[in-house]
């Protein structure tokens, strides 16, 4: 069997196990669904309440901010659905579980990503529903570009999210605890992406654009599709279409670093 066929087969089995587990623990699944729903509902409710009192934030209305949120949520949910398990790498390094992936004849990262768990694309489904609603409210220009680029932007955004998580997880090969680092990235990704980045000071805008490019998950694409003038770094609005490229570039960097981490880990003879 060719390698690709093996991968496809493993991946199919992995999702079969996920779905079967979700079906088995139905009560648990419902609680986690409520968990996901409440998290996003309270975040959006807070935005709604504030923007009822203050109709605009740096030129963005509530419906536009909901669109901004839904773009982030789509990318974030796609990352959570496909790549969530990289977050467990530091734990596996600590308890030595990671050694398992070295003795099996399959790409280590692929093995990490297909560790059975209880994953169900519930967040992704909610994200799609919110995206449809927000698109109806915010009325972006829906043309052929929108239809072609939107899925690519979401995939690019998920790759950015994944790549940064992978970079942080890889640090665990050198440092035992990476929780602090992870927490800062988590906060930048979850809370700072909730608002147009033009409200921040210059340094933070630069970080969110070039260092940890979370702004490409939602701010830049939303600016383009909502036809707003980009006033965070005064770039051409078309940079929003670069999200897929930024995602691929981030992934390549993170993957190269991951290989270095693996070699280092094996090299010191653990």
């Amino acid at each position, binding site marked *: 069997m060719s390698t690709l066929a093996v991968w496809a087969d493993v991946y199919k089995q992995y999702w079969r196990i996920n779905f079967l587990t979700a079906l088995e623990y139905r009560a648990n699944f419902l609680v986690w669904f409520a968990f996901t729903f409440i998290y996003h509902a309270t975040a959006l409710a807070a935005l709604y*309440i504030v923007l*009822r*009192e203050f109709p605009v*934030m740096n030129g963005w209305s509530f419906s536009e901010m909901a669109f901004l949120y839904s773009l982030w949520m789509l990318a974030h949910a796609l990352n959570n659905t496909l790549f969530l398990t990289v977050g467990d790498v530091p734990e596996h390094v600590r308890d030595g579980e990671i050694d398992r992936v070295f003795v099996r004849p399959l790409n280590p990262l692929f093995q990490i990503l297909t560790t059975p768990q209880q994953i169900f694309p519930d967040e992704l489904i909610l994200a799609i529903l919110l995206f449809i609603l927000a698109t109806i409210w915010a009325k972006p220009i829906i043309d052929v570009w929108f239809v072609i680029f939107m899925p690519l932007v979401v995939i690019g955004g998920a790759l950015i999210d994944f790549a940064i998580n992978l970079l942080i997880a890889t640090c665990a090969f050198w440092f035992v605890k990476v929780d602090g680092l992870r*927490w800062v990235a988590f906060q930048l990704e979850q809370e700072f992406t909730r608002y147009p980045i033009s409200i921040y000071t210059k340094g933070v805008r630069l970080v969110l654009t070039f260092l940890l490019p979370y702004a490409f998950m939602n701010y830049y694409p939303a600016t383009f599709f909502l036809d707003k003038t980009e006033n965070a770094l005064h770039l051409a609005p078309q940079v929003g279409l670069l999200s897929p490229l930024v995602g691929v570039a981030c992934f390549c960097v993170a993957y190269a670093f991951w290989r270095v981490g693996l070699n280092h880990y094996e090299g010191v003879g653990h």
Partner: protein
Amino acid sequence: MRRGFRIEPYLEFAKKAFAREATYRMEVFTSVGSLVLRIYLMRMVWLALYAQNVAPQGIALHQMLTYTVVALLMSLILEVDGTRLIRDRLRDGSIATDFMKPTSPALFYFSDGAGQTALHAMLILPSLGFALLMVHIDVPSPLAAAVFFLSFAIGYVVNFFLNFCMNCVAFWTMETFAIQLIVRWCSDLLSGQIIPLLFFPGILERIVLALPFAAIYSTPLLIYIGRITPAEYAGALLSQVGWLVVFAVLGTIIWRAAQRRLVIQGG
């Protein structure tokens, strides 16, 4: 017959919890760092909102910033889940030994929580220092400050009992992580921690102000920024005490039922 009550063992429990929390140095730094980030974020958010709109509900920008920063500093204490020990000890079974000791298990958990809280309270000063580098915070009148601390103390106990009830659910379900986070997020929004409850539209504002969550953050904060006037202090504190009594009674009932359940299970 009740044996003579002695406070010393509980002080020891609290000291032990304090020392245990202090060993997680990384977590301590992270919580201060994360707070500083959030203060920066909220400062930028409110500046942007006030720049293009008129002050709503008569809350001026400096009051809003004060409200937000004080709320975040309060969260250092209020987000400590003091009785999470119950859940942990249920899972590994060591709860049985807590019931065999000549001390009261409930008081043991409370003193453990108090020790944890004391450590986190120490983080307030450095956090306040960082906050003052970014934001100007209003200083209330001595009377308002005194009533604020009293109200915060009552809110702390309400929050403690709420967490206690949630953790006791573990006696029945073992797993409470998801449910607790759900309650936490709802409470963050409904207690006025993220945004003042005065911003809630129409009838919703009346409802959220009447819910027990308001006793945790909203009442002390509104006293601090002067939205609850000295004439209204008595009423505000009284309603907080009312919720405290309700949750204390609820906690006692749940705790009794939980003890019985533990015996039935043969633990």
